[in-house]
């Protein structure tokens, strides 16, 4: 109690320094939680993929559900030998996984992870609640290609280089329609703040208000995440493993986890922007966490849908992918933007 009153005293006297300390603690908690959550996503993917392909998936370590499998994998990655290939551009090679995982942390800082209701007030769980968080997340997502480019360039391997080429070309093509979709949502919600965008969807989800934008954003998201129909950066049959061919040990682990972190954060972004976030009827007895329950139900559906798409579709060629981005999705996203402005003006 004394400690608590001392802390509130300090917060009242020095609000700015208190905010800095709180932010640092939040960042540390976030960095650990997001990586553990990514491990859960990897487990979910292996299990659901196993079900969809009529096999078991992990079922040895940690009971019949194989829950501890990912812990075992992480320990394996930590203890494996770290090989830096001769002729690699060493400093860039070392920095690439760090830049890649820093990018995910940048995105995670501004994304609300649901909300709780305290004293009848909704409190969103977000580290940095900025006025322009949607634009910030979009900007941070555009950094993803740089980590992959550094990894691909520095490995001194033609397959890695091809993966980096493809990654950058694809990112340039798909960043534009994705940004236009985010702006369309912001026009309809009259705000760039992700929490405000979620609050604006209390009556109608934006997936219903602008279905075209929802579809385009989902396609761009799958492309940005580099998942199955669009995973040309690491197409196994063509270029071994793309930009992370030469990586091993924990450096590979960082690049690998970064992909699944991004999958989790991208799904959360889709839920927030188009599927109404944590909005939903209040569940009576546990009203305290009822927004969290709605949020996680939607998140789980989106994650399973992503895995389902991965196992059911085949890979496109890289020229087909860039064609789709520039010639189809960009004009359609502009149509969606005009639609959003028109509807927004009509109902304003």
């Amino acid at each position, binding site marked *: 109690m004394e400690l608590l009153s001392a802390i509130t005293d300090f917060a009242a006297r*020095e609000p*700015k*320094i208190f905010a*800095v300390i709180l932010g640092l603690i939040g960042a540390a908690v976030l960095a650990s939680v997001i990586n553990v959550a990514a491990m859960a996503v990897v487990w979910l993917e292996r299990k659901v993929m196993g079900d969809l392909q009529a096999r078991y998936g992990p079922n040895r370590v940690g009971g019949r559900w194989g829950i501890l499998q990912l812990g075992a994998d992480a320990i394996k990655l930590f203890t494996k030998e770290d090989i830096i290939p001769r*002729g690699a*551009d060493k400093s*860039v090679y070392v920095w690439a996984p760090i830049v890649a995982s820093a990018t995910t942390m940048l995105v995670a800082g501004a994304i609300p992870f649901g909300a709780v209701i305290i004293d009848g007030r909704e409190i969103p769980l977000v580290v940095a609640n*900025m*006025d*322009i968080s949607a*634009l*910030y997340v*979009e*900007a*941070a997502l*555009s*950094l993803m*290609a*740089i980590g992959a*480019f*550094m990894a691909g*360039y520095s490995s*001194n391997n033609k397959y890695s280089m091809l993966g*980096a*080429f493809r990654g*950058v*070309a694809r*990112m*340039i093509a798909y*960043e534009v329609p994705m*940004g236009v979709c985010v702006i369309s949502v912001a026009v309809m919600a009259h705000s760039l703040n992700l929490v405000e965008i979620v609050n604006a969807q209390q009556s109608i989800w934006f997936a219903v208000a602008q279905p075209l934008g929802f579809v385009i954003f989902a396609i761009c998201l799958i492309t940005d995440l580099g998942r199955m129909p669009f995973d040309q950066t690491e197409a196994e049959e063509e270029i071994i493993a793309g930009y992370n061919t030469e990586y091993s040990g924990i450096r590979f682990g960082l690049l690998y986890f970064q992909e699944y972190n991004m999958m989790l954060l991208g799904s959360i972004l889709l839920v927030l922007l188009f599927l109404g976030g944590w909005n939903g009827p209040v569940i009576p007895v546990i009203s305290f966490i009822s927004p969290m329950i709605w949020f996680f139900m939607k998140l789980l559906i989106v994650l399973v849908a992503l895995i389902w798409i991965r196992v059911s579709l085949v890979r496109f060629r890289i020229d087909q992918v860039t064609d789709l981005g520039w010639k189809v999705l960009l004009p359609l996203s502009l149509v969606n933007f005009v639609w959003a402005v028109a509807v927004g003006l009509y109902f304003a």
Partner: protein
Amino acid sequence: MIDLAQFYDIRFLIELGAFSLLAVLILGFSILTVWSRNMVHAALYLLGAFASVAMLYVSLNASFVGVAQVLVYIGAVGVLILFAVMLTRRTLVEEESHG
């Protein structure tokens, strides 16, 4: 004229420290961009300088300008420079670092 009394104020010290760190980062990255013999390294250093400038904007409470800096200069211009460097002749890049 610097008021020495304000050096005892911790908020002022934090601001000064943040600004000095960012100034060193911006200057360092810019000089490295010019001096680097490897084109890809120069492009990456340039991205570092852009990122430091974005952080400077954020520290000046101009977060929109900071985000626009990241979106335009790192996301678009920087990636475009990397793309252009990849399309140039490899011999220029190779002789310095690889090997």
